[in-house]
């Protein structure tokens, strides 16, 4: 929460005084999944199934963990996997785009 810039277009949504997204990318990755489902690019239930699988694997790898639950990290992972599985993106181009985004000069990120 402390690193989040609470201003402008990227202000995280709040409900009953609670931050729903702790960083702008979390809101965007969430909204991308909803958008794809609403536009019929993927069934929400397919995404849901992938999320359950990915969350389940995390739970198995972290028994009795005190580590903070990285919900949106797993969400991003699930979205990537379902897009590859549906043939909408291929994993090679995702990794290439990761590299391009990571290489951008500091300050360009939202």
């Amino acid at each position, binding site marked *: 929460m402390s690193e989040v810039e609470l201003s402008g*277009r990227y202000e995280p*949504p*709040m*409900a*009953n005084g*609670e*931050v*729903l997204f*702790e*960083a702008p*990318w*979390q*809101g*965007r*990755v*969430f*909204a*991308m999944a*909803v*958008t*794809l*489902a*609403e*536009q019929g*690019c993927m069934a*929400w*239930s397919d995404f*849901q*199934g992938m*999320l*359950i699988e990915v*969350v*389940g694997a995390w*739970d198995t790898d*972290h028994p009795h*963990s005190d580590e903070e*639950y*990285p*919900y*949106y*990290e*797993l969400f*991003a*992972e699930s*979205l*990537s996997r379902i*897009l590859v599985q549906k043939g*909408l*993106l291929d994993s090679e*181009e*995702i990794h290439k*785009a*990761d590299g*391009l*985004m*990571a290489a951008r000069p500091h300050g360009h*990120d*939202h």
Partner: protein
Amino acid sequence: MSHESARIRAEALESLLVEKGLIESEFVDDVIARYNDRVGPLNGARVVARAWRDSAFKQRLLNDGTDAIAEYDFEGGEVQKLVVVENTDAVHNVVVCTLCSCYPWAVLGLPPKWYKDPAYRSRVVREPRSVLKEFGTELEADMEVRVWDSSAEVRYMVLPSEPVAWRELPEKTVVERITRDSMIGVERLG
């Protein structure tokens, strides 16, 4: 995937999806705004307050939640079957999603962070009374506790009990006092 690599991944996915014409960034903005401004626990509070005042509506809500809220035209990315469970003097209901974070978005907006934590997801099933106590809700020993596990197909919402002192209040005032946590079942009103 770390926080930083997930942030990069989110940007990578958005740029690829936009490039391929699968999504438009403006649409993503609209979705965020929708969840930010228009969907939230207020929808659920309106439904609950009405159920307290209108017994025929309450009956419809308990019989078939999906059908009863259809007339409101609530927005929600994925509106699944909604089942509403009623708290009474003898029964207290609480909702969880043990598998991930299924939640009745159309009526309650996005889930709070704790709802998605493994601790809540596993513990509320095993020891609901202790978990509720940590939320400040101490149940009488003879109160039956029912834990409802949400899924991709079925979402649960709790119809909390109305505090006696609220019964003379206008519906509008009551709506403002109904909390999200009371509709998840971790809090009692009044």
